[in-house]
């Protein structure tokens, strides 16, 4: 079954990239159609991963990247309908291509089994909440870079970024606090000061700085807080697992 995976991953990543290019060319209808097709292929990847592990495929970075990619399109639909952010499709499309492209090159270990600590009702909501928040934070960050690089309608961009991060933050809070409830149930302590936990708290704190800056007289510093918060997010998600010196014992499987 793994033989199907590489072509599916490539097809989905290329689909998302193509959709981003079409959004750039203002061919929005066809861009949405292509993004939808890529999303369906992405879904097929998740199903194949699930069939391989006989479980919800959230056991390693490769499997999680596939789920992360899947989050973007439904979230774009939400913002397009609720906040009229149809013009932001290009950022969602390119952002969804990134984890899918990364997944192509990752070790597709099939032997993952849920160890007893992971057999909790908190497992799926905890990881999914983080994936939703990370997806939105990635889109908001790409928009921030765009804001800095090229002259765009500043007020409209800043409000869109704020709107996206405002939706991301409750999911990030849920992810962090549900992890605490889960840890209390499993090990008898909400917080172990594990590297991944501390970095997730730093990330959460820096996004709080962003929100408070925006509402205070220090609004001009909000962009910097946003930049630092996203760098902390990247550390939480990738670097803690990749760099042995930052290593996480409790999250070695995540």
């Amino acid at each position, binding site marked *: 079954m793994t033989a199907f995976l590489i072509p599916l991953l490539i097809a989905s990543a290329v689909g998302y990239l193509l959709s981003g290019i079409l959004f750039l060319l203002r061919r929005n209808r066809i861009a949405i159609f292509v993004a939808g097709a890529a999303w369906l292929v992405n879904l097929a990847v998740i199903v194949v991963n699930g069939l391989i592990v*006989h479980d919800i495929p959230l056991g390693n970075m490769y499997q999680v990247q596939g789920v992360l990619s899947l989050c973007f399109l439904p979230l774009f639909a939400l913002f397009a309908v*609720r*906040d*009229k*952010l149809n013009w932001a499709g290009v950022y969602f499309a390119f952002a969804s291509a990134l984890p899918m492209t990364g997944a192509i090159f990752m070790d597709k*270990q*099939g*032997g993952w*089994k*849920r*160890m*007893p*600590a992971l*057999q*909790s009702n908190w497992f799926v909501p905890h990881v999914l909440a983080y994936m939703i928040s990370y997806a939105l934070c990635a889109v908001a960050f790409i928009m921030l870079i765009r804001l800095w690089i090229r002259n765009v309608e500043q007020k*409209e961009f800043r*409000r*869109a970024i*704020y*709107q996206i991060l*405002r*939706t*991301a*933050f*409750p999911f990030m*809070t*849920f992810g962090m*606090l*549900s992890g*605490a*409830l*889960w840890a*209390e*149930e*499993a*090990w*008898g*302590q*909400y917080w172990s*000061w594990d*590297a991944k936990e*501390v*970095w997730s*708290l*730093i990330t959460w*704190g*820096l996004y*709080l*700085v962003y929100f*408070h*800056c925006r*509402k*205070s*007289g*220090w609004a001009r510093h909000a962009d910097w807080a946003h930049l630092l918060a996203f760098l902390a997010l990247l550390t939480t998600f990738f670097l803690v697992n990749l*760099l042995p*010196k*930052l290593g996480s014992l409790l999250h070695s499987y995540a």
Partner: protein
Amino acid sequence: MKFGIILFCLIVLLLLTAVLPVGGGLEATAIYYSPVMILLLALLSAGSVWCCLTRRAGRKQAGFYLVHLGVVVILAGAFVGYIAGVKGSLQLSVKQPVAANRLLLPERDSVELGFSVAAEDFQVKFYPPVYHLYRPTPSGMTAPGQMPFQKTGEFSADGQDEWILDDLGPFTASNLWSEARGEWTQRRMLDSGSFLHRASQTPSFFGVTLLVNGEKLPVSINHPAQYKGWRFYLVSYDQLNQSFVQLSARRDPGRTAVIAGIWVTMIGTFILGFRREKGGAA
């Protein structure tokens, strides 16, 4: 608001000193429980309460109040637990139930539980194993100090019974189960020097029954047992001989407050994040 920003930044900086891999001289837990950290968290709580008191009350402010007061309740509960809570560990034999009535504290001290605890009926179950296919490295291709084999495939005994081992052809996975020993074979030699090697097996379950003053309380990971204000958590077991289990036990008067605060904060952030703001659409 600016006071809050300064506090968040100071807390983040303090946390960074503990997790950044520079210097290596700082003891992380000393930072997390340092008087400076406790002071900053106390100021954060006071600031949050002050924000709530000075904010004009209104139905639309529900999210704001819930988030700020939720954080205060979490920190207050955690502080009560830090001051008045007791947490320790105990190792119990499972080959032959031996009652213990003292809890070993992290500082090598111990505390009386007020009742006796023993363990019986220990169970551990494993998932079917994963086998790695190793093949001999072609002659002259082995680097000094390297094993003359390389891993070329991975097969799970959980899925299909028939594996296709590349050019070695089909293989029936159930042949690896040894009925006599009641376990999966460690290594099976194949043609041309190749072999299948069993990777370490992942446990699917481990649990034990605690005997507390004659009462039977099952404990497994994610399912702690509760007795007279104490909560018992199964942490690990003797993987070599399965002769003992390691438990942690905790009595925390702040637990209810922390859990309530967590739920209030989570609900509050969702109300705040999804509330329509003036001129909401971007």
